């Protein structure tokens, strides 16, 4: 099912781009784009900063790195009639695997039989979080990047599938109900500047209710992500082989299974904007029944004020795991070399299961200056407190040593955002 979706999306993108020639009558074209040039400086020597878990490189020890936030996106929209529209969006950035197929963020056809009802098919944004639809459009968000404690886990940029959205006008309020289903895959690098990665293939379905009323916006999303790929098989096989010596190992094996397992998002968002003051906050509970995806909750809140072309803001957030640190001890009393092998295996298992923990909190201040039409410059300073058992949003600069103490990082970020 999923590979069919994937093939269909690439094909759709080709067809859409090909049909954007003047030969098609009555077709209106719109070209637009966005870009960010960003630099981040991080003072922590042991942990490298990254924007999200799909990146394998970043700033550390007072160095500056520009590839976490910098990107350029171009979009074509074609409109045949008020009913039929299509969009293709390409984003160039530093990806772990940079292929044309991965660069296609959206490629979909939209059908609007009546105003207020939209049906889309193709590749589109995974609308799981409040900013999901424009996660990469720096100009559209108040900060340098989506809040790290929360969006650092948001690696699902798009999926191949379909969605349906219905709008209801309730007096002065607007209610949108949306349902989506599709398939996605993502490559997760295994370490700092590492070329090794693990690849996950997901099916995702969910629904969103969002209500806009006056200066307020509220939303709730439920999404279930089912994992198709089989990760951790080598480790499971190894554990299986040692069960004669280590019977308890059998109990750990199911925690390392991924195929057919799923995790659920319960997301709440609340924002307010009266054109002078604004506030954004989001909370998500990620409930996972796989050991290889961290169970936990994530939150951020940000308050800002506009003074003409300048705005200033404060921001805070946290990520808190819901499962305790897993400790795996190998059985004692075996002769060498078996004892060492069991020990290595226990360590590897423990690392795999705890290596996904995220435990950190942050607070920061920032400013945005809209210095010219469709151009903004931002400066943001954040302080992160990262628990030694939950550094996974960051990359250990020395993979051979583990983090034994709680960490602090001060991150200074500057970004120039433009629309065109």
């Amino acid at each position, binding site marked *: 099912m999923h590979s069919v979706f994937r093939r269909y999306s690439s094909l759709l993108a080709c067809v859409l781009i090909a049909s954007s020639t003047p030969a098609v009558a009555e077709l209106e074209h*719109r070209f637009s784009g966005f870009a960010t040039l960003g630099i981040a400086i991080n003072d922590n020597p042991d942990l490298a900063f990254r924007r999200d878990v799909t990146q394998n490189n970043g700033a550390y020890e007072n160095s500056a790195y520009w590839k976490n936030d910098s990107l350029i996106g171009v979009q074509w929209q074609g409109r045949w009639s008020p009913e039929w529209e299509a969009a293709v969006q390409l984003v160039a950035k530093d990806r772990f695997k940079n292929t044309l197929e991965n660069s296609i963020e959206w490629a979909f056809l939209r059908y609007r039989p009546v105003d207020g009802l939209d049906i*889309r098919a193709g590749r589109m*944004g995974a609308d799981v979080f409040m900013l999901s639809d*424009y996660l990469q459009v720096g100009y559209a968000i108040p900060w340098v990047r989506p809040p790290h404690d929360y969006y650092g886990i948001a690696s699902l940029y798009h999926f191949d599938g379909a969605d349906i959205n219905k709008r209801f006008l309730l007096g002065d309020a607007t209610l949108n109900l949306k349902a989506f289903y599709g398939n996605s895959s993502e490559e997760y690098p295994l370490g700092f500047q590492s070329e090794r990665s693990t690849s996950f293939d997901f099916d995702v379905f969910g629904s969103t209710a969002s209500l806009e009323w006056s200066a307020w916006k509220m939303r709730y999303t439920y999404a279930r992500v089912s994992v198709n790929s089989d990760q951790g098989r080598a480790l499971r096989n190894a554990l299986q082989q040692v069960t004669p010596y280590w019977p308890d190992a059998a109990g750990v094996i199911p925690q390392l299974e991924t195929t057919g397992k799923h995790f659920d998002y319960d997301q709440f968002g609340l924002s307010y904007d009266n054109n002078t003051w604004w506030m954004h906050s989001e909370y998500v509970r990620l409930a996972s029944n796989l050991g290889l995806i961290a169970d936990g909750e994530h939150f951020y809140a940000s308050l800002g004020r506009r003074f003409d072309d300048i705005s200033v803001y404060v921001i805070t957030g946290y990520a808190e795991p819901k499962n305790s640190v897993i400790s795996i001890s190998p059985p004692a009393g075996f002769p060498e070399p078996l004892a060492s092998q069991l020990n290595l295996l226990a360590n590897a298992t423990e690392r795999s299961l705890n290596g996904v923990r995220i435990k950190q909190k942050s607070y920061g201040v920032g400013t945005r200056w809209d210095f010219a039409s469709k151009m903004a410059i931002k400066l943001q300073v954040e302080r992160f407190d990262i628990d030694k058992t939950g550094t996974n949003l960051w990359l250990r600069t020395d993979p051979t040593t583990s983090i034994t103490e709680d960490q602090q990082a001060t991150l200074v970020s500057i970004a120039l955002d433009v629309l065109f």
Partner: protein
Amino acid sequence: MRKLLLILFALTFSGPLQAEILVIVNASNSITTLEQKQIVDLFMGRVSAFPNKQPAQPLDLKTGTPQRAIFYKSLTGKSEAQVDAYWATLVFAGRMSPPKQFTDDSALIQAVAHEPAAIAYVSRQPLPKNVKVVMELAARQ
């Protein structure tokens, strides 16, 4: 400089009537009048049809045109940068295509005269017969 232009513009176009901005549609449109909220919904991409369900196509001035900033400020209380950021959330989500942009009033009037679904805003002025006013908006800084 932009501020100064805005003020000059406001002074030039402010008259005793306080309704310096006219929202216009094609003369063939069966709509005779629109409320401010309906115009906000159309220009902020919340709806894509007139209250009578006929498709609507908002037409805009180019970003940076002083009159554009005044229109959105008067209509929604938002600065031009806020409006552009808001539209970016719709456009780059692929939910709406951005309104077509024109260089000046006369280009807008001409476009509205030719497009039955069009809706646009122009400064107060004598208008040709093939367009009609559905709302008058007092300019606000």
